[in-house]
């Protein structure tokens, strides 16, 4: 069966390929046709290929009255910086060149003229040559401008990108009380700059690829040479190169395409919109993957413990951070186990409850029509709906929904005797706990597993919960993130890496990098805490 399926897929692929080559009219990006000498032919070609799009601006200038030579400037409206274009391209071309023309006949050879423009006239920093249509089209679509002159089979690509940008703003998904309030933005250049500004090390290397047949999205790898594990780096390169897809719109695409295991609820790639978190990751030997068009930057390898850490942990005093981290692990446990433990204890192990509590819970359940499992399921689903509604809703209505939610679930349902008050408490605590987990995607996967455990609890009590937990742990232990065991440093246990997992030792004591992530250059410095002033 499997064999047939594979064969079928292959034939379909072949068919698809032949179809794409069968359309000669449209130039697929990837052909490299050389430019023509005649300007109008070039213009014709570009117009045809871009479908005469209305945002394509072609500005034709008669540059020399004497030789009747025309020059065309191509750019995409909205992507190129028109102000700069006027000041630094059009002005020199139309005024400076005129002046030069009085002195000598510069336009007798268009190639020389073009070279002259590039070398002497244009007051712009980034100029390169364009010789083929492929580059030309890409250049235009990327927001740069292209200058073609009649009579020469090459043109100039002038870097003049400038589009509307959100700018650097406070990150919305991962907020901190203490710590930098800058977040990444949608522009990859801004983002790399934000990281560079934090690590001024020549070893911080940046490699860029374009991924996506059609979107041509810029994807940048950042890492610190010498700290990064070369094996992991090679693996990342290999996986990125293997991607064959038409479009990358968000780093989520990359994440799904390069992660180790697709069929798992657990994220094996970390993402953040905080430059400081990325910088910290780089310093530990991780690799950052930046994708143009999204403020979410990926970080690999990502281990389980990392998803429970916030960059603020390192900015607050270590004792405070330890307390908060401990709290987070407790919250993780509650958010994973809360309802299932409640179900297991109240429907299987009533002997575990102290007598007064048992009687009080039993009294609350008098008249509740559903079994505890259904009750919990009902409440959990209601809560998830409310939460999702809260995210998608226009901000202004948010308040209204939370009021309705609180009233409907919190009070009316209990008073009507549909759910018991204890269940509302359990679900509420679970819900709040799940927001304590700093990483959104980890919180989501915990939610998914919570439902599974509820099922286990409803049919096998605590035995089921224990077995479910063992199964989850087995699965997690079998995961790897770019070759690094996902559950390290818990399993395989590494005593020295415990310093920054559940607990965080004072920064002065954190002298080595995580063991499995950076293989070389393990020490971070000898930074003993400043000694106390000596006593008199």
């Amino acid at each position, binding site marked *: 069966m499997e064999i047939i399926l594979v064969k079928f897929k292959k034939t379909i692929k072949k068919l698809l390929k032949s179809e794409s080559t069968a359309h000669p009219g449209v130039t697929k990006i990837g052909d490299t046709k050389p430019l023509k000498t005649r300007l109008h032919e070039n213009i014709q070609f570009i117009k045809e290929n871009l479908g005469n799009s209305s945002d394509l601006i072609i500005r034709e200038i008669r540059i020399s009255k004497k030789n009747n030579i025309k020059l065309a400037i191509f750019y995409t409206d909205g992507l190129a910086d028109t102000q700069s274009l006027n000041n630094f391209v059009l002005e020199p071309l139309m005024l400076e060149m005129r002046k030069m023309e009085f002195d000598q006949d510069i336009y007798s050879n268009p190639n020389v003229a073009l070279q002259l423009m590039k070398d002497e006239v244009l007051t712009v920093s980034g100029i390169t040559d364009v010789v083929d249509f492929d580059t030309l089209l890409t250049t235009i679509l990327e927001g740069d401008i292209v200058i073609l002159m009649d009579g020469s089979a090459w043109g100039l690509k002038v870097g003049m990108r400038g589009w509307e940008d959100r700018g650097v703003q406070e990150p919305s998904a991962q907020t901190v009380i203490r710590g930098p309030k800058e977040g990444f933005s949608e522009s990859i250049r801004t983002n790399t700059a934000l990281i560079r500004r934090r690590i001024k090390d020549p070893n911080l290397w940046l490699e860029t690829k374009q991924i996506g047949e059609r979107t041509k999205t810029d994807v940048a790898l950042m890492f610190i040479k010498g700290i990064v594990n070369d094996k992991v780096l090679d693996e990342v390169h290999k996986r990125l190169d293997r991607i064959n897809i038409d479009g990358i719109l968000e780093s989520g695409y990359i994440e799904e395409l390069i992660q180790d295991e697709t069929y798992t609820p657990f994220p094996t790639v970390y993402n953040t919109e905080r430059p400081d978190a990325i910088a910290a990751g780089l310093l530990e030997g991780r690799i950052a993957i930046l994708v143009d068009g999204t403020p979410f930057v990926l970080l690999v390898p990502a281990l389980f413990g990392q998803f429970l850490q916030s960059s603020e942990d390192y900015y607050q005093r270590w004792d405070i951070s330890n307390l908060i981290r401990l709290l987070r692990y407790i919250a993780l446990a509650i958010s994973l186990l809360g309802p299932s433990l409640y179900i297991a204890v109240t429907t*299987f192990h009533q*002997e575990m409850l102290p007598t007064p509590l048992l009687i009080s819970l039993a009294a609350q359940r*008098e008249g509740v029509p559903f079994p505890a499992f259904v009750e919990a399921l009902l409440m959990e689903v209601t809560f998830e709906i409310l939460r999702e509604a809260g995210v998608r809703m226009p901000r202004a209505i948010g308040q209204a929904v939370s009021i309705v939610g609180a009233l409907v679930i919190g009070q009316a349902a209990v008073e009507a005797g549909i759910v018991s008050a204890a269940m509302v408490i359990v679900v509420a605590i679970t819900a709040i706990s799940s927001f304590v987990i700093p990483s959104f995607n980890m919180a989501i996967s915990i939610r998914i597993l919570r439902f599974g455990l509820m099922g286990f609890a409803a*049919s096998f009590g605590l035995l089921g919960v224990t077995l479910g937990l063992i199964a989850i742990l087995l699965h997690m232990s079998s995961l790897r993130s770019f070759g690094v065991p996902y559950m390290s440093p818990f399993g395989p246990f590494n005593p020295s890496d415990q310093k920054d997992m559940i607990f965080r030792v004072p920064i002065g004591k954190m002298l080595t990098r995580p063991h499995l992530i950076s293989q070389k250059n393990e020490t971070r410095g000898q930074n003993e805490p400043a000694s106390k002033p000596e006593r008199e």
Partner: protein
Amino acid sequence: MIKRKFYYALVSIITLTMLTGCWSRTELNELAITVALGIDQSGDQFKVSAQVVNPGEVASQKGGSGNSPVATYTATGETVYEAIRKMTTKVPRKIYGAHLRLLVIGEELASGKGIGKALDLLSRDPELRTDFYIVVAKETTAEQVLKILSIPLERIPANKIFQSLETSEKAWAATAGVTIDELISDLVSKGHQPLLTGIQIFGDPKSGESTESLQRSSTEPVLTFADMAAFKQDKLIGWLNERESKGANYITNKVHSTIVSIPCTRDGMLGIEVVRSKTKVSGSVKNGVPKMNVSVQAEANVGEVECSEVDLSKKDTIAELESKTEEDIKRKIEAAITKAQADFKTDIFGFGEVIHREDPKYWNQYKMKWNEEFVELPVKVDVDIKIRRSGSVGNSFLKSLKE
């Protein structure tokens, strides 16, 4: 690929098992939370009563609707198990015993059929725990005891009994909370016979069954712990009165704190609070004759002085009080021993176990006829009391009153 399919299969198998699962599931509102069980003899059969909590009445914040917080159900059967199962014909819910606080055994059963047969189920059923107390209903049936509702301070009668037993065990010492595992190990032991606390009803039992009795503040009828039941094997053989009960508890080292009242020389009484009492029982076999030695060491406080002539500031007075207290305790202990040896002829103090530990060879020889040996057993009692404090005042104001 294979991994993924395996996971699908795993999930589907587990789901299937789960769907067919849920056998042992019981929702909270399907439980009849039983807090007390009573076992009586009814002809050849067992009559089992269960005191079941009505959670809505007990836990409600708004005072409830005046219904009874507990209900008592009764059923008879050839075996205890049968009777409990038969109860389902009367109770709408499943009898749930994990929160049992109290097991009451009717006097008739205890002295007639014996308690052994009734207890097997209670030790076998994994649902039951071992932390409930066992008491014997004196001059009444267990059913009657369980039917008494009128107990102030606590909505669930069994809870009240449980707690008052715990408190009185700690502060009064004439009662002893015995749990089922202790009882059973006493039952099987040749050298230690069981001793259980008795419970008695004062007043008209009928009037205590109605919820009206809940409204009255004077509490007639009343459940009280009274005396202790001595057993020979699993049969009730007689009752120790309060003094003897105390004495017995001294021997078995179950006294934590109690009050000793001793008369003053001229008028009134003195109340001595005994605390940190510790009993050492040692035995020895010399020339084939066993001998026991009971030594009690305790601290005491002067708790109450009702006489005018006692001067607590004097050393002699304290010494005198000490020796009087020692005398009193010693008399209680001896009374208990005499009763056990002369009347009951049963070793309720576990002297046999002491001999067993000291001299296993002798024990193996005599264990089958230990009760006869016990009757003749010489027991030496030593009591050593140290009076430490005399409360927050020195001499009583009664002394100044007199002057």
